[in-house]
């Protein structure tokens, strides 16, 4: 077991130790805690990047690091596993968390108690959920990240947050109950909770028990689909995310992706092509459920007026596209979906941060958060000047206004975010959607001649990808005009460096992705290959051996 293997547990230990340290510091020393938090989050990101580079370096498509926290062999003890998919999600979490924290340091961390400790515990839950390879351990990490998210959701208090938080907590507690029922059923049928061991056992399940196994898997899937935001299990998401404070909402952009990650991981491992009678169980549900999510969210986004709400609905659009794309169980499509996941998560996270800055500068036409859901947008009358108005102020020749740098920054970032989310050229959002469409129309690759017609569900998804982009375009253009082009004069918003930097970082990452798209696409293609052929994963986990007890320690244990 090398040093790198020891590093696998570091993303979980680091946040929990930091959180403990900060709880010990108590309510005082806020600047110190902020610095510790920033340092620890940055270190976590560095560890995640190291793990990602290691996963890429050590081998071909399926290099996998295994860590045995309890020093017990695989099916008996808990296992942590880092493979391509886990490493990608770790790095993405690290980037989003770092930017959200940087934004929070400007203002938000002072809005309530224990922000920094909760933030670190949330990170521990996220990292743990991405690393673990054990069904029940996954439940524990889910509860850790949810418990912290309840606290963060209510951060800043206020009626809208508490009210939305109540629903958020209830639905997640219910989902946790379903998770337990599903896990118990699967354990009852197969006698194991280790994911790799489950992949081995499921093809051997006798016919009589298949119904029970599928019922368990379906109940488990309902729990994850509720978290991943599939319609009709996603009504909690929009009020909760749009009520949460900006940095928290930015961090939550990764939370629906946890549900998606878990589904992808479990589905490809448990019901892969080698699973015999259970192969690809429930794939059609993912495809059509995802498409229903896209349809509903793409229509709702046209009616949204506040940017936070639009961002939350865009999360649902991207969640639906991801679920649907993965349901086809086609490696090239999964690779495209993962690319799209990275680019859309960065953009959505930036949009949540941006939304707060833009709405803050526009206190004039504020619509209360609770009322936004019930109203339809009004026509843009304010754009048409009254007839006879001289548009040149005081009859002077317009020499040209200097746009304040803050407005310019907000406007340009908004355009970049919108392009990324809509999926318009030239940014990486377009590349993501293009990869998806190309994989849908050429299931075997571009250079292979087609011998069968394209399936009806592929055509539907292609249509939905384009239509959802179109409706998002309408919505973003309307909000952009309302926020930036209305003729009334507004004082330029005051922005702090800490608030601009994270947005610039997130948008910058997404823009760099446009130029470095090939590198990431290669990576996601390797990821998808490994996911759809889980043999390597199973072998690596099962081959992990505990470290022998040192001779001197063994002698002491013996009486």
């Amino acid at each position: 077991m090398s040093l790198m293997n020891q590093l696998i547990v570091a993303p979980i230990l680091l946040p929990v130790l930091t959180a403990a340290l900060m709880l010990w510091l108590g309510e005082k020393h806020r600047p110190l805690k902020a610095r510790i938090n920033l340092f620890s989050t940055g270190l976590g990101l560095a560890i995640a990047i190291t793990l990602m580079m290691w996963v890429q370096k050590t081998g071909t498509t399926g290099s996998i690091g295994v860590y045995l926290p309890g020093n017990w062999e695989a099916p008996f003890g808990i296992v942590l596993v880092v493979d391509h998919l886990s490493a990608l999600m770790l790095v993405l979490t690290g980037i989003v968390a770092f930017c959200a924290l940087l934004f929070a340091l400007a203002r938000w961390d002072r809005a309530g108690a224990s922000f920094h400790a909760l933030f670190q515990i949330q990170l521990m839950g996220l990292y743990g959920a991405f690393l673990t390879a054990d069904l029940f351990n996954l439940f524990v990490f889910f509860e850790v990240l949810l418990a912290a998210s309840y606290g963060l959701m209510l951060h800043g208090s206020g009626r809208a947050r508490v009210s939305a938080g109540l629903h958020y907590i209830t639905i997640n507690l219910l989902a946790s109950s379903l998770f337990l029922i599903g896990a118990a059923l699967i354990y009852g049928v197969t006698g194991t909770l280790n994911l790799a061991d489950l992949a081995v056992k499921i093809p051997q399940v006798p016919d009589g028990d298949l119904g029970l196994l599928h019922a368990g898997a379906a109940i488990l899937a309902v729990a994850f689909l509720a978290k991943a935001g599939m319609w009709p299990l996603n009504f909690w998401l929009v009020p909760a995310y749009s009520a949460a404070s900006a940095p928290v909402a930015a961090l939550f952009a990764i939370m629906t992706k946890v549900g998606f990650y878990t589904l992808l991981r479990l589905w490809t491992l448990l019901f892969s092509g080698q699973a015999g009678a259970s192969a690809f169980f429930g794939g059609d549900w993912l495809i059509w459920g995802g498409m229903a999510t896209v349809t509903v969210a793409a229509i709702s986004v046209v009616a949204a007026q506040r940017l936070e709400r639009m961002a939350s609905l865009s999360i649902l659009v991207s969640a639906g596209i991801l679920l649907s794309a993965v349901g086809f169980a086609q490696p090239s499509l999964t690779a495209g979906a993962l690319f799209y996941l990275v680019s859309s998560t960065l953009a959505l996270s930036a949009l949540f941060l941006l939304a707060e800055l833009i709405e803050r500068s526009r206190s004039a036409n504020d619509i209360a958060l609770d009322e936004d859901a019930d109203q339809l947008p009004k026509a843009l009358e304010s754009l048409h000047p009254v007839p006879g108005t001289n548009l040149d102020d005081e009859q002077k020749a317009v020499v040209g206004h200097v746009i304040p740098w803050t407005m310019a920054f907000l406007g340009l970032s908004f355009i970049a975010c919108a392009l990324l989310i809509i999926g318009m050229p030239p940014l990486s959002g377009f590349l993501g959607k293009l990869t998806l469409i190309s994989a849908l129309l050429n299931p075997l690759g571009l250079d292979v001649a087609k011998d069968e017609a394209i399936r009806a569900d592929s055509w539907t998804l292609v249509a939905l990808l384009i239509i959802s982009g179109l409706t998002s375009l309408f919505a973003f253009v309307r909000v952009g005009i309302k926020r930036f082009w209305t003729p009334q004069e507004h004082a330029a918003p005051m922005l702090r460096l800490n608030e601009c930097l994270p947005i610039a970082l997130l948008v910058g990452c997404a823009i760099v992705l446009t130029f470095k798209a090939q590198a990431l696409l290669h990576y996601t293609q390797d990821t998808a290959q490994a996911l759809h052929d889980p043999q390597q994963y199973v072998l690596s986990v099962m081959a992990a051996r505990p470290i022998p007890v040192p001779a001197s320690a063994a002698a002491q244990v013996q009486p």
Partner: protein
Amino acid sequence: MEEVIAIAIGVLAASGVWLILRPRTFQVVMGLCLLSYGVNLFIFSMGSLFIGKEPIIKDGVPQDLLNYTDPLPQALVLTAIVISFAMTALFLVVLLASRGLTGNDHVDGRELGE
């Protein structure tokens, strides 16, 4: 014994679901509690039910599931109980905050027709 446990789980889950669908926050808390009891019993019964068998290995008794009960579901239940207990406590705090901020105990923060 299986019938008794099955009926108990059914009754707990049914009452839990009914209470969760009620409009008062306290009823929802009670519903979540009952549902989590039902789930805990369910996990426990997944290790198959025995009378008078221990989960710990004894000397001289063959080590198979004919002579012992499965210890894993018991460990899982213990974890689940602790977590659901903590979550209920947290939910109660949010409930009180919501009661204080909105002035009523409706789950939406406002009575119907208001």
